[in-house]
């Protein structure tokens, strides 16, 4: 079942990335966007998708389904994302986080009825986020150029590779689950995306539809937030407005 040769892609990719990221200017710099023209094109495409499909469908989804049902769908989806988080915890040698995520997975899958409920929350077992882009960062890869990915939105070279490699190779759930459960899972992932689109509708709509340059807004919001979550930013990477006068 497991073909170990394909895992050789991981060190190869990492090497490639570390090479690529060596091309990026100092890590503290706010925005490194050499592909801006192409990215802006992708942004228009993504924005059209959001305006015409994602936003209206997510409104309908939230209006149609009662909140508890929406939550159950998202819980089911989140729960099945835990195994890949555990893999990344281990790859980052973060054993306490792996332990917490594992415990959460076990509790929610059993007591929580296949992840639909989250008894782990009242036990203090909160989900600890981890993805392969983060793992690459821990291994020393710089974020590289900013890119906007079709369908997925803002990202950067390192995290984009992390997304693809992580989903293809490092998701135990995708190996273990077979139809029909695998299709329930895919469906729940869609549901989770729709629910989130509605929860954060005000912020997302402000960025995409109420700003003078939605591309630049989405870019800075994504980069600053991602660096914050990965603890990847230096505190002085932010603008000091008094600098001009000193």
């Amino acid at each position, binding site marked *: 079942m497991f073909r170990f040769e394909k895992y050789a892609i991981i060190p190869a990719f990492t090497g490639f990335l570390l090479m690529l990221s060596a091309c990026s200017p100092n890590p503290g710099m*706010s925005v490194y966007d050499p592909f801006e023209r192409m990215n802006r094109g992708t942004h228009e495409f993504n924005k059209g998708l959001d305006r015409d499909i994602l936003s209206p469908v997510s409104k309908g989804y939230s209006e149609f389904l009662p909140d508890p049902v929406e939550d159950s769908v998202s819980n089911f989806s989140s729960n099945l994302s835990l195994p890949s988080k555990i893999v990344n915890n281990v790859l980052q040698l973060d054993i306490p986080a792996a332990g917490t995520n594992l415990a959460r997975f076990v509790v929610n899958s059993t007591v929580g009825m296949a992840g639909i409920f989250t008894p782990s929350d009242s036990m203090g077992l909160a989900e600890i986020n981890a993805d392969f882009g983060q793992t690459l960062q821990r291994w020393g890869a710089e974020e590289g150029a900013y890119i906007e990915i079709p369908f997925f939105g803002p990202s950067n070279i390192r995290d984009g590779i992390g997304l693809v490699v992580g989903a293809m190779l490092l998701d135990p759930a995708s190996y273990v689950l077979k139809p029909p459960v695998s299709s329930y899972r895919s469906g729940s992932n869609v549901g989770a995306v729709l629910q989130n689109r509605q*929860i954060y509708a*005000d*912020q997302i709509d*402000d960025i995409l539809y109420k*700003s*003078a*340059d939605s591309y*630049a*807004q989405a870019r*800075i*919001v994504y980069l*600053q*937030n*991602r*660096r*914050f*979550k990965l603890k990847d*930013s230096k*505190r*002085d990477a*932010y*603008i*000091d*407005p*008094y600098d*001009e*006068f*000193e």
Partner: protein
Amino acid sequence: MLISTPMMNLNNFKVPRRGFLAGMLTTAVVGPAYALDNATATKLVDEVVLEINQAINSGASEAKLIKAFEGIFAKYADLNIISRSALGPRARTASALELNKFSFAFRSYIARKYGRRFKEFVGSAIKVKDTTNLGKFFEVNALAKMQGYAPFEVAFRVSDRSGKQLFFDIIIEGISLLSSERVEIGALLDALNGDIGRLTQDLSDLS
């Protein structure tokens, strides 16, 4: 000692010089300012947070909430430096009058933009956690618990380099208000070919 600000080169700018002098005069009349340190920075943010919490939980109408936010901004934020920074490089060639007018339009715009996001948050609270000295300013970290959202981090950056202890940036989950507004105002200004007067007018007209 009246103010603990480092000496600024007064030949390089116009508006902050006025701010600096005004600050000096105010301080001379009011009394000695306390030096900016961990305790005073924390106290400033405690007051800001208290007023924000009060405003959010008052259940007031959106219009009243926006007015309250504008008041908080006027009292505790370094409006001059924030609005000037939002204008980017073009601020250097603007007159002090233009910059001043712009800063008031900017303040209303910010109050409206962020104030209307809070109208549903009755029962929410921000709690100050800790304060760090980052050399030229202090960063006060807080945790915001808003109804219906997971708790998120809010950091206030406080400085006294304009002559008074004020906050000059709010960073929410890593996203800096100063940075986003620079991008936004920059884009608006580009669309108007750098016409700050027109921009001031447009911001005042928006509602």
